[in-house]
């Protein structure tokens, strides 16, 4: 299913593709271009890909990571409604329906080596690490390197070269 969708997308490259299917694939690809700090606790645990709030991916996310692994760690897709529930997590997609205000959510996650992703406008500017934007009907990325650095994440230069970087430092919330 994913293959036909990707093939179809590749030939037409139109925005008609289900938006969240592509975003699910990108979420998976991030695991390939980002390095997390090595901690013994997560050494043998599954690589967790989490969604906070109402899940817009439905089945696509599960399909995108099916059979994949990062450094021998299998993927685990987890869904949370409240940020307090988020435990061991490597990538967290914050849905726009999340109840708490974004700033408090990010504050809750600070210092926890979590790659935060969202398609909320100005997410990167507000302290998120990667933001999905649509330019000319194409899905593009905005990355906040400072936020990544703060979370202890190292983003590949290849990924960085594709994205537009948010240099403005956010106002410290504390």
């Amino acid at each position: 299913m994913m293959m036909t969708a990707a093939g179809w997308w590749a030939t037409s490259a139109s925005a008609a593709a289900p938006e969240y299917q592509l975003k699910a694939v990108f979420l998976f690809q991030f695991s390939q271009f980002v390095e997390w700090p090595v901690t013994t606790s997560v050494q043998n645990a599954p690589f967790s890909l989490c969604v906070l709030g109402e899940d817009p991916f439905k089945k696509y996310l599960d399909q995108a990571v099916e059979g994949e692994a990062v450094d021998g760690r299998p993927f685990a897709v987890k869904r949370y409604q409240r940020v307090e529930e988020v435990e061991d997590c490597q990538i967290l997609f914050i849905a726009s329906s999340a109840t708490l205000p974004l700033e408090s959510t990010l504050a809750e996650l600070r210092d926890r080596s979590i790659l935060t992703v969202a398609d909320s406008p100005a997410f990167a500017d507000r302290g998120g690490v990667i933001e999905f934007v649509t330019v000319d009907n194409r899905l593009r990325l905005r990355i906040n390197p400072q936020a990544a650095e703060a979370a202890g994440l190292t983003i590949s230069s290849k990924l960085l070269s594709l994205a537009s970087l948010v240099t403005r430092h956010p106002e410290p919330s504390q």
Partner: protein
Amino acid sequence: MTLQRQLMRAALLTSGLALLLTLVGFVTAQLITLRESTVTHLASLGNVIAANSSAALAFHDTEAAREILGALRADPSVVAAELFDQEGNYFAAYPISISPQNSQQMPVDGGHRFEGRYLIDAYPVVQNGARPLGTLVLTFDMAPVYQQLLGLGAVAALVAVIALFGAYLLSRALQRQISEPIAALVATASAVSDRSDYSVRAARVSNDELGRLTDTFNKMLTRIEEQRGALLDSEGRVRAVLDSALSAVVVIDTSGRILDWNQRAESMFGWQREEAVGLNLVTTIIPERYRSDHLSGMQGFNDSGAMPILNQLIELSALRRDGTEFPVELSISAITTGSTTTFCGFVTDITERRQAQRRIESQLNRMNLHNRITRAIGDRQDLPSIFRVVLKNLEDNMPIDFGCVLLYDNAGETLTVGNMGASSALLARQFDLVESMQIPLEPSGLVRSVRGELLYEPDLHDSSFAFPRRLSAAGLGSLVVAPLLVESRVFGVVVAARRTVAGFSSGDCEFLRQLSEHVGLASHQAHLHSALQLAYDELRQTQKTVMQQERLRALGQMASGVAHDINNAISPIALYTESLLEREPGLSDRGRRHLTTIQQAIEDVAQTVGRMREFYRPREAQFEQARVDLNRVVQQVIELTRVRWSDVVQERGIVITPQIELAAALPTIMGVESEIRDALTNLVFNAVDAMPDGGMLSICTCVSPSPAGSDSPVDEQVVLEVRDTGVGMDEDTRRRCMEPFFTTKGERGSGLGLAMVYGMVRRHTAELDIESAPRQGTVVRVKFAVPASGPESAVRLPTETTTRRPLRLLIVDDDPVIIDALREILEGDGHAVTAADGGRKGIELFAAAQAGHEPFAAVVTDLGMPYVDGRQVAAEVKALSAATPVLLLTGWGQRLLDDRDIPPCVDRVLKKPPRLRELRTALAELTLPPRVQ
């Protein structure tokens, strides 16, 4: 091509090939190296680009991908680059002008490949060593690389050419060292072979193998020179041997050309050796008629290598130079040396041997002929056939042109022409000589030969005698007359003549002399043989007669047995018939007539049966004979048989004419009339049977004198002759006609007719004479002796005793029918009859009666009975009462009477069937009161 050039060519070819291989190897190695380095170079480039483009692929950023590919501009050799995503779909390309339509197809296996001047390779796009994101395909232009290689190759080729030229110069200089000494050796060898000069020696140039070769060659020449000398010596010896040989020796090759020819051949055939060698054998010494055989034989050897006549002695004729032929003995041997074959023929002149052989052969032939004639004579027993076979053999095998036998009669002084050979007889007509012709002895010129000398006239034309001149007139030239002697008495001569003058050699004369001696002996033997044959025939005749008598005797014995049984069987008939005729009251005339007929018939049966076993017996003294008038017998037989020869045959439409000639005043003879009548009847029947188509039957009687020399006591014979004009008998039938059971009439005949005639003849001491030949009729003559004088035979008939006293009689018989018949008749006569059905019972009854008050007056007993027979009964009766008479009744009666074999104790023997009258008479006579005492 000279050795020099060959050596050079070899050197140049070798070095050229080595250089070429080096060059090819160098260029190939360069090509492989360059290619590999290019692939490696391209791989490093491709891997960098692929690594860089991973994010673009992962996040579908085409522009970023194009930018990355654009970095390839730095290397002009990379002419194209394409990116395909994970599913193999086109993603981005360099240069940008390459559209998905004309882009390279993505390599399937990911390995590199060369297409024309391009190298195409594919590299996976991978991030973090995880799953591939896509594929990068690079196309590299190899043209600059190949140009570089071409430059390298050109330089290498130039170096190779220079090296080859150097090799050429070097080999040119070196090969001379080898080829020059060899050329010198070749020059020496050709000098030897061209001039056959074995004294030339080759010069030695170097010390290596070539030097040694030269030395060896020179040594070889020395050896050849020595052997050649020896060979010439040996050839001379062989020639001397051949020339001293007694046989002509001729050597030819396989084509038939003469190779050698010894002195003997020169003198034998008349050709000198120098002339003969090189000629074709066929036309030189082989006669015309053998030539094709010879050629086909040679052809056969050339084709198959086989020649059957090899190593055998064969005899044939050879041709001299002057064209005359002479016989030779020839043996041929094939000599094969290497691949050539020569034939060596040894020829011996055998003219003299042939002549000697021929003399021996003719001697042998005469001996053979002598032998054959002797054997042929030995097989023959009569003179004419001996002479015939002698003359035939002489004509065919000696051979002679004329041969005959002249028989000499001592008294007549003439010669009789006996036998002539078949072809001689033809020749003899020319001078009027035929068989049985008489030739006067005196002028014939054969006088000396009848005195026992052999006569040889070598030239008949000179002879002054008559007989030789006759032969000479028929073209005969020489003559031999050999006497035929038996016990030094000449009884004839053998005449042999040939057309040639002096045609008989001494050997021939000697042969004829010996032959005539043999013929003489043989004819003597023939005389002896015929005498012996005569004696033998007589002996056989006698033997046959004896055998015939023997056969008849055996038959007679058998007939006696049969007669006995018949006599027993008809006894009751006879008794009852007689008794009925005598005593039956109220017998009608018809019944009486019939009974009388029965009585006569029984009488005839008894007589016939009696004769049946008598006919073989010689006449005996007591044989009851009476005077018989043959004429009367003939007339009776004519009447008796009329039905047979007149009525019966006329029914068949044929006529038999009787002709009776009876001599007047025929003397009576002594004999039994009924037997003679029967015999004559048989003869008449035979004559009638012999004339199925009619004819004349003649019967005559006559008187003839006794044959001279016979020891018959009487002077005259009465002949009874029966003659017919019928089919007659052949010799064999005539010889056997009197044998019992021999018949020519098939089922109709008993085969006993003539046998009975013969029996009658024997009993009457008469003679029987049968003349017959097929279709000539048959004459049978019976000749009776006429008795000188004889008393009238007193035929004494038993006188019936009319006085009958009643008697007490005992009858003993094992046949109840006979007992009943006898009892009834005797009781009818008034006697008291007691019957016993067997010997033992009879004896018991007699003994009982004897002991009682009424003993039997007489006993009548059968002879043959089981357990106790008539003889024993008689003996017992006589033992008990010697006075009581015993009568023996028997079917053997006549024989007992004849044999004088009346058992003791028996007073009278009566034969069965008993005649009542005889029985009564016997009883009356025996029981008379003893008044004679």
